């Protein structure tokens, strides 16, 4: 799969770059980090212009994110039911709605370039939780531009070691996701134990 995606980019250039990052932003697991690093290497070789490469990659990602957001918002009951199944009951969705309002901006921004595997989920959840479209779009554009510029820049610097660097950054992204998930589950476990301890205390009293 990776080889076919990268071969399509090598052959068709910018249109393929736009299409691949857009599809990945909707949720298909494609090697976008490696693709952007290869793009940076192409820039270093003089085969592409840095600013157009960053603009095309950011625009493609934003287009995919907007589709994800729209599916979450207007995807009908099927998507909402699936989200409910994944995220919990109506009360849980209301909690999610409140959390999206509080943490939404940071969630949208950091999932564009730092914890990218969470991006498609945050797009769907932002749409389903009625998060402000304007705020989502502003932070989406900023985050995707930062992400595209960062990985293309890495590709320019390490233009002759793209696979090595791509593998390291891919592993690093998943490590950050794992640490974040461990922190969330750890926090929820501690919160549950605290509630149970309080309940036991009031029962004894």
């Amino acid at each position: 799969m990776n080889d076919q995606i990268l071969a399509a980019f090598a052959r068709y250039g910018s249109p393929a770059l736009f299409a691949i990052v857009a599809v990945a932003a909707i949720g298909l697991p494609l090697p976008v980090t490696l693709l952007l690093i290869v793009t940076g290497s192409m820039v270093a070789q003089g085969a592409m212009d840095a600013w157009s490469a960053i603009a095309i990659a950011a625009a493609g990602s934003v287009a995919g994110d907007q589709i994800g957001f729209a599916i979450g918002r207007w995807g009908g009951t099927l998507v909402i039911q699936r989200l409910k199944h994944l995220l919990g009951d109506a009360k849980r969705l209301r909690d999610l709605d409140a959390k999206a309002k509080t943490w939404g901006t940071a969630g949208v921004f950091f999932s564009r370039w730092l914890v990218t595997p969470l991006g498609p989920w945050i797009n769907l959840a932002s749409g389903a939780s009625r998060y402000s479209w304007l705020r989502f779009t502003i932070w989406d554009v900023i985050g995707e531009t930062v992400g595209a510029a960062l990985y293309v820049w890495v590709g320019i610097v390490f233009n002759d070691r793209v696979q090595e660097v791509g593998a390291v950054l891919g592993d690093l992204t998943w490590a950050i996701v794992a640490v974040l998930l461990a922190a969330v589950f750890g926090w929820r476990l501690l919160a549950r134990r605290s509630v149970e301890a309080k309940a036991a205390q009031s029962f004894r009293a």
Partner: protein
Amino acid sequence: MRSQNEPIRAWMTVPFVAHTHHVREETLFDALHMQPSPQDHRPIRDIARSEKRPASDLIADLEDAIEDAETHGETLPPVHRAP
């Protein structure tokens, strides 16, 4: 060795391999018995398909040519382009 750090893959184009391994494009096109062309954006797997050969054969030819260039000191300095 650079070629061990950056293995040649079937998605790469000949100019891309030449760049990442610091050898002249002409050297690699010669190794594949092709006319040198910086505008040839075909990935190795597409070249292999049109030549009716397995991509692994072409990759082996490219690796041999790179090794030869390294042995004879015909490599190029790395490109350091300011971002």
